[in-house]
């Protein structure tokens, strides 16, 4: 078996598409003007930003001027939360127990400041029950923040229903759609969300550029104060090349969405079928129905995740351990715990995420590798 480089960690980050880099290049070279400058070199860059805003807005069906660029998906999440919270001291916020840490740790900080936070539970499939949200809303609830697609298990929440429940009680609704953008259709109008977070590097765009959709009329405080960039709502000289790249990536995502979904679904399902046929003692985490097309989250019994990951890496294959354990906390994945995966099993969990450059040959190679590796690690394992 010849060694192959197979990247199956598209949920962690994606390579830049050639067309995206191409679109960025002039802005990394001769078009270096500051977009706030009023001479030609500035104006042409201001126009480039406008174009990007338009491209992104088309992908989510918003108005162009409802898109605000940030430095990351995390910044977008923090902004939405702190920007809503800071104008109204010590109120109540609702979220889920499977959010990304950009949401959870922001809320934890607010709790330390006196805010109250309710964490909605998900079921074993990884889904929120809208009734739970209904019940959790109180008179002083100011924000509901629920992610669209989970980064570990890929499960997709019923955002439209949840947003409607929040709105019926006059509560703002924010949605972390960092994993969703470019992977499933998003229509902010139909969904009825007030704010939505995005990050370019999850859809074949550059790292270090994110966006927050803020519905026209929704007023939140700044996270970053200063110059008049982003309509005075987010200061800092604009990252023009990356903004242009984000726009191009969004345009490509929009025109290729059906194909992208079909491609990922086909390979993901092929992967799952072969895995369950050829490898024993595996379990899928999260529903297979409402799920990102490219995501597969698998627990292996009796063997440990990092060992699998490192052996796969040795064979040229890049995947994530499913357990998202930040070195500071030292605890196993809060997402896997939330859906009831036994702690011992969480350590044997791998997230495979498939993307546009994945091929059937890649999958075959990976399955063969997994067969070898699990055999080897089981021989090593003290469990019987």
């Amino acid at each position: 078996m010849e060694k192959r480089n197979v990247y199956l960690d598209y949920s962690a980050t994606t390579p830049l598409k050639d067309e995206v880099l191409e679109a960025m290049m002039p802005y990394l070279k001769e078009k270096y003007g500051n977009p706030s400058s009023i001479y030609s070199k500035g104006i042409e860059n201001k126009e480039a930003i406008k174009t990007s805003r338009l491209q992104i807005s088309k992908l989510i069906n918003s108005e162009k001027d409802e898109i605000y660029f940030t430095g990351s998906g995390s910044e977008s999440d923090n902004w939405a939360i702190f920007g809503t919270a800071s104008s109204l001291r010590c109120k109540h916020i609702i979220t889920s127990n499977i959010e990304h840490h950009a949401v959870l740790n922001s809320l934890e900080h607010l709790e330390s400041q006196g805010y109250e936070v309710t964490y909605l539970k998900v079921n074993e499939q990884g889904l929120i029950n809208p009734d739970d949200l209904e019940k959790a809303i109180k008179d002083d609830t100011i924000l509901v923040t629920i992610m669209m697609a989970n980064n570990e298990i890929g499960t997709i929440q019923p955002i439209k229903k949840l947003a409607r429940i929040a709105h019926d009680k006059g509560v703002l609704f924010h949605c972390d759609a960092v994993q969703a953008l470019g992977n499933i259709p998003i229509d902010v109008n139909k969904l009825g969300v007030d704010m939505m977070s995005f990050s370019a590097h999850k859809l074949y765009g550059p790292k270090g550029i994110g966006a927050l959709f803020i519905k026209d009329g929704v007023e939140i405080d700044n996270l970053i104060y200063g110059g008049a960039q982003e309509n005075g709502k987010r200061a800092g000289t604009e990252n023009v090349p990356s903004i242009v790249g984000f726009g191009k990536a969004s345009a490509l995502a929009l025109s290729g969405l059906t194909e992208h979904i079909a491609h990922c679904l086909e390979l993901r399902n092929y992967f799952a079928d072969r895995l369950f046929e050829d490898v024993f003692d595996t379990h899928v985490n999260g529903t297979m129905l409402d799920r990102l097309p490219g995501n597969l989250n698998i627990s292996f019994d009796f063997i440990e995740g990092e060992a699998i990951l490192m052996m796969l890496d040795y064979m040229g294959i890049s995947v994530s351990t499913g357990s998202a354990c930040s070195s500071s906390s030292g605890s196993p994945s809060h997402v896997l715990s939330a859906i009831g995966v036994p702690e011992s099993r969480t350590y044997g969990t791998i997230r495979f995420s498939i993307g546009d450059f994945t091929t059937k040959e890649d999958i075959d190679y990976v399955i063969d590798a997994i067969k070898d590796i699990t055999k080897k690690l089981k021989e090593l394992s003290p469990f019987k």
Partner: protein
Amino acid sequence: MNMYNDTVMDHFMNPRNVGEMEDPDGIGIYGSPTCGDLMQIHLKIEDEVITDAKFKAYGCGSAIASSSMATTIIIGLSVEDALKLTNGEIVDKLEGLPEAKIHCSVLADMAIKKAIFDYAETNNKHYKALEGFDPYEMVQEEHVCICGKDEEK
């Protein structure tokens, strides 16, 4: 580029002394699956010398590599000398581990001590180095559970 150096990778990919014994003279098990790692060691001891060692490990790359390395070190050592083995020595022989992984080498060290303790108990031996050693008292929690988890993305 790899998180582990070549020596670690070699012991991880080609671990030495993997297995179990029919009639071990000492058995040591350390770790816990709910903590993400578990190490088992079997020892053959003749005339106070460790003549063979076999291990099985559930854990991250560095846990496996340090277990493998530890067995190669202790085979041929006297029991007294084997008891002097520290995880620092294992790490040195592995030519270093990433800082966050250093504690994973404790696993091997501890499992060996437990195996010798087992041998000492069944054979009514006494070793200075085991005075005060209580395998049931060893708090798992101090062995922080971060072996082999990468960060959220």
